[in-house]
């Protein structure tokens, strides 16, 4: 489980770097909008990239509950185990 969590976090970091166009340092506590300066549109586009990366569906209402990288890791792990 620990290993999966780390790899999901790495996947998020890679997708985030692509979205913001530079490498980013993240932890579970990183606030996606505030700390990384992503507006709501950028967040939604970044979510589409993660859907493809993990072959899952992340509905918008689920995105609305996500504030930190940790929230996102939890959401992705839940959605992956569902599929």
């Amino acid at each position, binding site marked *: 489980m620990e290993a999966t969590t780390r790899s999901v976090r790495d996947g998020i970091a890679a997708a985030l770097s692509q979205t913001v166009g530079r490498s980013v340092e993240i932890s579970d506590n990183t606030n996606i909008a505030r700390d990384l300066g992503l*507006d709501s*549109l950028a967040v*939604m586009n970044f979510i*589409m990239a993660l859907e493809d990366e993990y072959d899952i*569906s992340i509905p918008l209402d689920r995105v609305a509950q996500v504030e930190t990288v940790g929230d996102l890791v939890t959401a992705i792990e839940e959605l992956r185990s569902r599929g």
Partner: protein
Amino acid sequence: MSILAKYASMKGALDGLRHAGQNPFDVKFDSVLSPTEGELDGRRTILLGTNNYLGLTFDQSCIDKSVEAVRAQGTGTTGSRIANGSYDGHKRLEQELADFYGREHCMVFTTGYQANLGILSALVGRGDHLIIDADSHASIYDGSRLAQTEVIRFRHNDPKDLHKRLKRLADAPGDKLIVVEGIYSMLGDTAPLKEIAAVKRETGAYLLVDEAHSMGVLGPTGRGLAELAGVEEDVDFIVGTFSKSLGSVGGFCVSDHPDFDLLRVVSRPYMFTASLPPSIIASTIQALHRLREEPELRARLTANARRLYDGLTTLGFATGPEANPIVAVAMPDRETAIAFWNALLVGGLYLNLALPPATPNNTPLLRSSVSAAHTPEQIDTAIELFEKVGREFGVLPAPARRARA
């Protein structure tokens, strides 16, 4: 702390706009003279951003019908159709729209925005799935929130991406509804509807097309993109508006679903708002007659759209992918867009300043919408002004003789 303190960054942006001169939120016309001309600060101004596609807002027959209705039936219905009942006109407009689209059923809403809210929130709910184009209009996003359903976005105008996302949901229970637009309101591009309809058939989803900007604009009889693409059979629900080609206000949905009328007792944006006043209904019915009887209006609109699109594209402006009545010019940055828009306004041309996040790919846009009522001279005046300002601001290369500057 003020209750509105959370909008501090919005306030900053608005102050910035005000500082730059005029701004879209404060534009006030002294008078509107015709579908294509208004007066602004004492200047005659060409209106090139009002979605008045067929130019019917000043049509004498529409005005006459509207005046007749207000005299005979009063200024308003003062309530919703479930509380105060329907007027004859509401029913007649619904029948005429159903007839125009060759469909069994029609529901009329008080605005186009409410039509999307009312239809989306009633068609899907908890346990269902709404699959929307990423560049959907705000009314589609807001309708999806009211629906409290699972919303998945697919990449703009990408049927393969839509297919991939629907495949992921293949085993999920619940209904799936795909939502696309005929013409997208910012860039004027059309949806690849033939391909989207094929995805719909293969995956067993329902398909809704919002023809707000394509009704009266596309298709052999003006029904919109579904008609043009030859896929009306595959489209389960068509949503549209009266505030563009039909020159008034309101919205509608047509469908062949046998139980469509059930929506009248479950759609809250239909049930809990006042119905359209008789004068609006009357002019809208007449405008629909004009749309059906005069295909020349559409021909003129198409010719004007082509004239503006070709003119601006040839000059070297970055325009959208298709010559439709919405012609958008991409600006290099926000500041240039604001200054450019102000310069056009001072020169006597009004159009829309569209700033991120309301625009695709965070690109600031100057958005024109052409009307059948524009004269070729008005279109040419607009192009000349675009060229002049474009060179001044360095959006276009300076002409050779001024190359040193």
